[in-house]
């Protein structure tokens, strides 16, 4: 938990020596509290005070990266419980389970699915982030063999090794020693051995507990072995319990400063029914999972989950924007109507939705107004006659349309005269004020 300026002041030497650059120790303490200075600037502070300050200033949920290179996954660092308070920081990673009982061909096939899963949506690259190789056979040799296939076929993909057997763990984890894998399966009976393997191979350690009390005990114990990068599994498997545990862990870390559970959470959502598995994964995305393990990654499911993750993890303080361009709704012909609006995503969704409802194929020119809605953009001078004229001219839409007619949002009817002057040869038509009357508007044309 963050300390106040006065609490920090009590830990300082109180000599007002100015060596840190601040006029007094109190002024320095205030800067520390606001994270505008580092304790290292004070040459005289005690080691003990440094330790207390270091712990207090650490983020409530430890930042951890797993995997290496371009596809490395960042986790933790969350600061809030609700997305409207502040942006959720590191999106949930999706992992697919590969059982070590599968044949080499089957494993290679899943590896390829993971590699091929990447798609582009609203300018972001989205993909299945990781592979979990699980030791369901109970055989160390089989786990290692499966891990070798994954290491060869999906070399860049971050890996989770799942086993509770230390010798099996060691052989498999070694294959990814420079790639920061997660070793999942440290429990009450193997914690010391698993911690040693994680430490030797620079792996993140996945803690497998049976309930929150045991989880809290285990993380404290493992920290005692010198392993600090952990991901947590409370043992919750049913949706109800997953919400309960994930919520209590997140609250304890953020609101109570409970360091024993201040780590990213891993949830196991494997279900026989792929759709149900996808819905559970959706629950995890909304409710605080850092890693979600699934049993299958069909493209239709991926698309829905990638989209949900992107939506939940957008910044609520920044208006979501869509790309500036001429959107086609249906299959417009040269004589189809051409609308213009701004690039605030909600404006776009509502306007394009209503044009779709009208069943009249159309073009929708979406102009970059920094994510503002029509009236706000107009008031802010971003949706003006000259800017609209410039956008329409540069878009090249002129050569695609038979009639040079532009339908303007009703709220900015005032712009129509000026726009006709700036866009010679164009007819400017004032459209509806509200999107929901677009179908009626199109019908009466």
């Amino acid at each position, binding site marked *: 938990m963050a300390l106040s300026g006065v609490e920090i002041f009590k830990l300082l030497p109180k000599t007002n020596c100015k060596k840190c650059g601040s006029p007094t120790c109190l002024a320095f303490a205030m800067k520390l509290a606001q994270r505008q200075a580092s304790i290292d600037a004070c040459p005289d502070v005690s080691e003990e005070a440094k330790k207390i300050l270091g712990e207090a200033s650490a983020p409530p949920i430890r930042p951890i990266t797993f995997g290496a290179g371009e596809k490395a996954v960042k986790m933790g660092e969350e600061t809030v419980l609700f997305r409207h308070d502040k942006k959720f920081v590191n999106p949930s990673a999706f992992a697919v389970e590969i059982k070590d009982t599968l044949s080499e061909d089957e494993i290679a096939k899943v590896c390829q699915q993971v590699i091929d899963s990447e798609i582009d949506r609203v300018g972001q690259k989205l993909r299945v982030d990781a592979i979990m190789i699980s030791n369901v056979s109970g055989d160390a040799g089989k786990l290692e063999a499966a891990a070798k296939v994954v290491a060869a076929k999906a070399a860049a993909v971050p890996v989770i090794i799942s086993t509770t057997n230390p010798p099996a763990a060691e052989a498999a984890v070694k294959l990814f020693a420079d790639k920061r894998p997660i070793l999942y399966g440290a429990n009450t009976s193997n914690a010391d051995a698993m911690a040693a393997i994680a430490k030797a191979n620079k792996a993140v350690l996945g803690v497998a507990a049976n309930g929150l009390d045991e*989880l809290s005990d285990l993380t404290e114990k493992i920290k005692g072995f010198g392993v600090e990068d952990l991901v947590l599994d409370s043992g919750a498997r049913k949706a109800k319990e997953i919400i309960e545990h994930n919520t209590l862990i997140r609250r304890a870390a953020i609101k109570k400063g409970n360091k024993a559970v201040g780590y990213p959470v891993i949830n196991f959502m494997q279900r026989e029914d792929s759709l149900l598995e996808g819905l559970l994964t959706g629950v995890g995305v909304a409710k605080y999972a850092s890693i979600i393990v699934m049993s299958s990654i069909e493209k239709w499911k991926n698309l829905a989950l990638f989209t949900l993750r*992107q939506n939940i993890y957008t910044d609520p303080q920044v208006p979501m924007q869509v790309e500036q361009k001429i959107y086609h709704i249906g299959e417009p012909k040269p004589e189809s109507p051409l609308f213009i609006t701004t690039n605030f995503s909600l404006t776009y969704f509502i306007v394009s*939705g209503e044009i779709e409802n009208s069943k009249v194929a159309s073009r929708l020119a979406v102009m970059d107004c920094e994510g503002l809605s029509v009236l706000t953009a107009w008031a802010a001078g971003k949706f003006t006659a000259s800017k609209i004229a410039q956008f329409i001219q540069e878009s090249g839409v002129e050569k695609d349309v038979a009639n040079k007619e532009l339908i303007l949002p009703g709220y900015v009817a005032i712009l129509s005269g000026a726009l006709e002057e700036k866009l010679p040869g164009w007819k400017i038509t004032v459209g509806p004020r509200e999107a929901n009357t677009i179908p009626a508007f199109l019908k009466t044309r």
Partner: protein
Amino acid sequence: MAFTAPKETYSGKVYPVTIGTGDKAVTFGGENVLPFHSFEGITPSRPVIAIEIQDVPPADWPDTVRKPYDAVSSDPVTWAKFCQDELKAKALALRLVGTHPDRENRSPADAVKTVKDVLAAVQVPLIILGSNHAEKDTSVLVAVAEAAKDKNCIIGKAQEANYKTIAAASMANNHKLIAMSELDINLSKQLNILITQMGFDKEKIITDPMCSALGYGIEYTYSVMERIRLAALTQNDVTMQQPLLGDVGMYVWKIKEASAPEADLPQWGALEERGIAWEAETATALLIAGAGLLIMRHPRAIKEVENLIDELV
């Protein structure tokens, strides 16, 4: 060290709402905690999913969701019975979309006949929705509210432009009422206040903060719902304690992801599964945000969301 569970106690609760009559009546709401937080309070009812039907055949629905109803959807009564008897619907949502002036422009009298026929044929609770044409809805919904008198239906949707007549008709005929505003917690609160100032019982309102589909603004609906729930529970705000509606099907089944063929977009995967997943995932997100009542279309999406609810309660 034992884990100290940081449980919350809330000062407010969500009103329980019962719809329908007799042994098919259903109740939703009533919880005094955030959605599915049964570990720190009471959650007496599970969310209810109403299956959507229409007064006119769903010619404009994409193939995926139209096909399961092809044999029954030419007649609202057959359609309603199919949903109740075969799909085991717990509630039905009859959307009188055919009354819209830009559609079939059916008259209030036509709508009354449809509602009476459906009510005579099924026992499960009925949600009666207009065509979302503020002006036409006033005449249609006033007529159908009277035709359904004492059946304890939900009438919707009352909006800022037309709430007075619709709320009055709903009140006079002992129905519940959907109050819809557009994605803004303050507008939602304002509308609830206006409706209760007419003498309408605040515990008979269902709040619709406006739905949006996954990928098409769902984060706005999600956060507005979450904020309404927090206001109800942590601030004991009596104007925000109505159960929330997610009108999912209508918003999902008009977007590109629900109808674009796999041949055009191979990276999007199988069309049928994709559309179903889109509806079910949208519903899931809204359940987690606080929806107590969902209106959905595809039988498979509904079945799997019910399975999810089984796990959540």
